[in-house]
């Protein structure tokens, strides 16, 4: 997947600049990757799991009183 062969005429000056831009992009992305995950997102997964377990239990136990959250 080298893009060198697609743009063989690229001026030499562009290569270090492109490398710099690539580094900046990875740095930006990496800084976001290392941010702590907001609790609301992990809690959402817990909620989804709980809801699904409840639903499955309800199905297997001939559910009643399903109105609560």
């Amino acid at each position, binding site marked *: 997947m080298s893009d060198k062969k697609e743009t063989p005429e690229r001026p030499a000056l562009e290569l270090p600049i492109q490398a710099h831009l690539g580094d900046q992009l990875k740095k*930006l992305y990496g800084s976001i990757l290392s941010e702590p995950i907001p609790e609301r997102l992990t809690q*959402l*997964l817990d909620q*989804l*799991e709980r809801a699904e377990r409840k639903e499955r239990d309800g199905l297997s136990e001939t559910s009643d009183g399903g109105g609560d959250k």
Partner: protein
Amino acid sequence: MTALVAFKSALLAELPSLRAFAISLSGSHDHADDLVQETVMKAWSAHASFSPGTSIRAWLFTIMRNTYFSQYRKARREVQDSDGEAAARLVSAPAQNGHLDLADFRVALEKLPDDQREALILVGASGFSCEEAAEICGCAVGTIKSRVNRARQKLMQMMAMQNAADL
């Protein structure tokens, strides 16, 4: 039930990547976390359509970018239009060793057209091949390649503008 646990922990493991893609795509932490939340909810209810053995990250990114382009782009545009001073800042900011610093790079990235920014992030930061990116975006590989090239050219132009005094 173990499948449920495995799916949940796979989603949990992908949350940082989903956030990074969402933030770099939307340019806003607030919108991004809403976008991640919606992606997770959609993924959860579409669990059955995920084929085990394939990349869950690619699957999630596909859901996310479709959600972004169908719902979030408009909101983002409104924010973007209201702070056009970002562009002015980019041009007037002092050059640092002929390089864009990270904050300026971020502004420049946000100024790219959505489709070009998306392609650049997928290939240049998220670690997808052009083929995988094409699949995620639902377009041809050649389209991804040309979007990435145009994105790079535009970033270079913005950088040249900023560093005009230097060069």
